[in-house]
């Protein structure tokens, strides 16, 4: 199906104009920069713009879509978003498995700069967090927003602008890293022009969300939307403040942050931890609060508790970033503040996890039989586990053992693999058949395979890195009778070998599961009958405009 045929004639004209504008913007960037990462990125934008010109142009005189479409949900962007989610999952996870393997076989690093660990590691983090997670959030938010509001998206151009623009940002980011272009900020390595572009995309996203909510046919805004909106709004705020930078010139990729010294560190981790909070948690809780009740056929156990958890999470999370800077030049009280709020955060976090698990009470037979629901159940369990672990690791004396060790990496992956990715797969397996006009995925047994590979991979990965981290922490603080360190740093690195092998195996299992999911979705899309007769939440028709 050509997505341009879902647009009306006037929408195709707007899309055509935007595609030309993108091509011109790319040309100006490339011409202005002449060389380096920015010139390559300009050329990428220009080629994307030209491709879209031909793509839309090719369908320009196709018949207009059915006039009844205003009475249907607009799921073509969600379909594209899910595809990009899975493509980025494979890119990001492959990079992750590759760099994990390099830690076990460091001599396998090819003697080419772009394959170095330092350049590929942010390809993994950006590919997974923004590419995989971000596309999943955008795609599911469009789906959930429309169903919970019983309204079609406010317009048909913005969702495409948001998705294509966001993916251009991701592509600029990861290609920049392999060319050595980075502003050296954790989870925000992309340079200034990519950051500015993301602001434009994000403002459009927020505007679309608000405009669609304004057209809703439900008196109350369902809690999932609150989480999605918190995600969009707070990420905008974090992104802008953290990325304030002065470019060396408007024709060069390099820029310098306006923050200095310990303030730079504080801003970095205020951003960094709230990226975890609002990118990797809030939006995914929105996903959980919609797809878990829908899949289990049971309303959320306590809607009231979900409101309390929402405000608790929003209020507490924003303060916890300084727990990344224990025992540094950051004022002691600021570290204590971050630690205290991290511990308090456990209350709303467990309220959410408990609420999700209590919702399944009475539906355990479905959890047993339905791998899709099991993905969501495991997600809620890992959400509870990793938030407990996070609060625990933030306590200063615990942090003195864990900081700089692989325990932190294990913790992050228990959150990202066990919670974030599991809820994404649960949501995908629920919505892909729905938007394909089918009752179930093309290969139902493949979901079981995916589930066990994902759970097995996550457990192997996380348990290996718990062992690795605690071993490292203990080796670094072991003293002999003369007060000298018992182990050299290299000895602690050598002790990691079995764990690093295990993490590579666990990561590879998880990647294989993601590939199975991608193939299953592709098969489901291809089998799709051209009908939308499968039961869906009825939409309240718009009054004639």
């Amino acid at each position, binding site marked *: 199906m050509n997505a341009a045929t879902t647009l009306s004639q006037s929408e195709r004209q707007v899309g055509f104009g935007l595609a030309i504008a993108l091509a011109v913007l790319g040309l100006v960037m490339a011409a202005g920069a002449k060389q380096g990462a920015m010139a390559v990125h300009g050329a990428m934008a220009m080629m994307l713009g030209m491709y879209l010109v031909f793509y839309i142009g090719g369908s320009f005189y196709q018949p207009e879509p059915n006039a009844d479409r205003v009475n249907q949900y607009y799921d073509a962007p969600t379909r594209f978003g899910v595809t990009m989610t899975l493509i980025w999952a494979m890119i990001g996870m492959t990079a992750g498995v590759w760099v994990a393997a390099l830690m076990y076989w460091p001599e396998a690093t090819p003697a080419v700069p772009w394959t170095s660990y330092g350049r590929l590691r942010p390809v993994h983090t950006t590919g997974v967090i923004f590419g995989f997670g971000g596309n999943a959030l955008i795609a599911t938010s469009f789906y959930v927003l429309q169903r919970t509001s019983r309204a079609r998206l406010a317009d048909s151009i913005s969702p495409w602008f948001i998705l294509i623009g966001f993916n251009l940002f991701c592509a600029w980011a990861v290609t920049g890293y392999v060319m050595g272009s980075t502003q050296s900020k954790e989870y925000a390595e992309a340079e200034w022009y990519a950051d500015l572009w993301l602001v434009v995309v994000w403002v459009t996203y927020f505007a679309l969300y608000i405009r669609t909510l304004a057209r809703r046919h439900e*008196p109350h805004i*369902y809690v999932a939307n609150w989480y999605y909106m918190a995600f969009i709004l707070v990420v905008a705020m974090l992104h802008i403040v953290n990325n304030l930078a002065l470019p060396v010139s408007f024709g060069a990729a390099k820029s310098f942050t306006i923050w200095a010294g310990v303030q730079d560190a504080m801003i970095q981790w205020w951003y960094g931890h709230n990226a975890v909070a609002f990118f990797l948690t809030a939006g995914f809780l929105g996903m959980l609060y919609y797809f878990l009740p829908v899949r289990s056929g049971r309303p959320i156990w306590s809607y009231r508790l979900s*409101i309390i958890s929402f405000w608790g999470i929003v209020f507490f999370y924003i303060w916890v970033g300084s727990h990344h800077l224990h025992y540094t030049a950051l004022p002691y009280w600021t570290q204590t503040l971050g630690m205290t709020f991290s511990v308090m955060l456990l209350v709303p976090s467990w309220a959410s996890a408990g609420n999700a698990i209590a919702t399944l009470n009475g539906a355990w037979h479905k959890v047993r039989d339905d791998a899709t629901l099991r993905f969501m159940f495991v997600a809620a369990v890992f959400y509870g586990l990793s938030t407990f672990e996070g609060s625990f690791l933030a306590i200063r004396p615990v942090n003195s053992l864990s900081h700089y060790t692989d325990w932190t990496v294990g913790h992050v992956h228990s959150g990202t693999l066990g919670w974030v990715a599991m809820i994404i797969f649960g949501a995908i397996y629920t919505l892909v058949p729905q938007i394909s006009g089918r009752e179930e995925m093309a290969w139902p047994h493949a979901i079981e395979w995916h589930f066990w590979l994902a759970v097995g991979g996550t457990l192997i990965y996380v348990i290996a890195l718990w062992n690795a981290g605690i071993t490292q922490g203990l080796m670094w603080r072991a003293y002999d009778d003369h007060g000298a360190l018992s182990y050299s740093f290299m000895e602690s690195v050598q002790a990691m070998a079995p764990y690093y092998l295990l993490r590579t195996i666990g990561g590879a299992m998880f990647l294989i599961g993601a590939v199975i999911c991608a193939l299953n979705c592709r098969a489901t899309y291809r089998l799709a009958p051209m009908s939308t007769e499968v039961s869906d939440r009825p939409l309240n028709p718009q009054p004639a405009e």
Partner: protein
Amino acid sequence: MTYDTLVVLAKVFGPIWMMGFFIIVIIRAYNPKRRAAYDQVAQSVLSEQPPEGQK
């Protein structure tokens, strides 16, 4: 404004603001008058429900 004044202000108004907000949220969420409305919202995402105007 001196640093000390700022600290006093932060310590006084921070907890009042946070606790005040928390209490308002609790009252709004657990007000018995809203129970029925929240139960209905929780049910509303399950697809068997007909649209609002067609009940």
